């Protein structure tokens, strides 16, 4: 791999002499992320490779695909959305599979550090507002320039979640309550269908001492209701114990919405709340799904097993949202 990567880098980066320090950051059967340095006489450049090795070209059903991810990041970068610069899209002659190479943006993605460490104290004060502006930038990307992506509606998403939950064949009255609520409160198509990031939350946001530096992981990008992104980032699972700060455990909805509207887009708070319920259920169903992967063997780790026991966290969050008790 290192040899191919070195040749590839020399072919597109003027003056590059090779690579160093290649480390696999994550990797499933079909997709890998590598960190490495481009060696250059004027100073090395930190880089990230996202690729599907040859023979694993097909993306999972919901995934946008690596070429689309690269296109979206490039457009976001050009539009001034904090985003890594895409350096190269892999071609067949690179012999590295499909994927792309981007600049490595230094910063923190681990929620607990962002929420607790002193060095992010200033960032925490501004982050919700900043992320409102960033989301507005994503939703404002002109559709004509965007790649082909799946189009999701709230109705389709409810159906998919229901189907997936029922496939586990394990009754969960609270999930049924949430599904029923979603059907009864489905707001239908939005006034404007936009690009939706699809996974706009801790882990996919690189944070520095004064705020957001990059939005990562466009794997779940699609066209749909822009309020989906604002609801998803408020899901309690991403607050890491700071439950009174709905935006990622660091900010208020008012700050998020204020930032969003300051960038010239309108917030529909009821829709955002609807997508928060949807997102809470979605994370619960995902926890159950990861447990199934443990049981069916592809990933027989203790962590996968234990994540099945985190679905109940989303049940209490759904109860707080749908059946709050008097204080």
């Amino acid at each position, binding site marked *: 791999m290192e040899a191919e990567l070195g040749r590839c880098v020399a072919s597109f980066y003027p003056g590059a002499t090779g690579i160093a320090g290649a480390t696999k950051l994550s990797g499933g059967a079909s997709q890998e992320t590598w960190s490495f340095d481009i060696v250059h006489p004027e100073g090395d450049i930190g880089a990230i490779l996202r690729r599907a090795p040859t023979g694993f070209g097909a993306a999972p059903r919901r995934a946008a695909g690596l070429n689309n991810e690269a296109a979206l990041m490039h457009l976001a970068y050009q539009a001034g959305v904090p985003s890594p610069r895409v350096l190269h899209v892999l071609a067949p002659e690179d012999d590295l599979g499909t994927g792309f190479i981007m600049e490595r943006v230094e910063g923190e993605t681990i929620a607990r550090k962002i929420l607790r460490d002193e060095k992010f104290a200033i960032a925490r004060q501004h982050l919700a507002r900043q992320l409102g502006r960033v989301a507005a930038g994503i939703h404002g990307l002109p559709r004509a320039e965007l790649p082909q992506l799946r189009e999701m509606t709230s109705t389709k998403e409810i159906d998919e979640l229901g189907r997936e939950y029922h496939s586990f064949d394990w009754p969960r*009255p609270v999930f049924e309550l949430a599904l029923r609520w979603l059907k009864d409160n489905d707001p239908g198509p939005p006034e404007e269908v936009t690009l939706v990031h699809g996974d706009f939350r801790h882990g996919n946001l690189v944070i520095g001492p004064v705020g957001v530096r990059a939005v990562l992981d466009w794997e779940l990008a699609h066209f749909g209701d822009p309020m989906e992104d604002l609801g998803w980032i408020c899901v309690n699972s991403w607050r890491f114990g700071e439950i009174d700060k709905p935006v990622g455990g660091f900010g208020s909805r008012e700050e998020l919405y204020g930032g969003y509207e300051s960038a010239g887009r309108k917030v529909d708070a009821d829709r955002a709340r609807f997508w928060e319920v949807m997102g809470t259920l979605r994370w619960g169903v995902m926890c159950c799904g990861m447990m199934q992967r443990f049981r069916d063997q592809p990933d027989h780790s203790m962590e996968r*097993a234990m994540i099945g026991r985190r679905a*109940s*966290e989303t049940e*209490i969050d759904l109860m707080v949202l*749908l059946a709050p*008790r008097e204080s």
Partner: protein
Amino acid sequence: MQDEPTPIELTKAVADFLRNEIAPGLSGHQAFKLRVAVNILDLVTRQLALEQGSDGAEAARLAQLLDLNGSLFELNRALADRIADGKVDLTTPGLPEHLWQTTLDKLAIDQPNYASYKRERGRRNE
């Protein structure tokens, strides 16, 4: 009748050993994995201690709410179906209380440190 010590005492003994004698000597990935393992043993210990009581109470509530007899799984399936069909909802007497109690009983075993659980449990005891 099986002999002593009880499963609760046994799992707790293993968890305590791993936590107190093995964990301090590990670092990095192995320390992380051990923490997960100890969390699993703690969860199993809580389930062994609490499950019988909460399952019994849940089954009794469900039998009354649904006017049905059956296993806990069957009763939960019946409740799930009736919620899906709209035959019962949050205005049905006893349903919100049942769902809250059942959810709190799950969290007591799964994630007793989850912040929403700690707040809601406190509310119940007020």
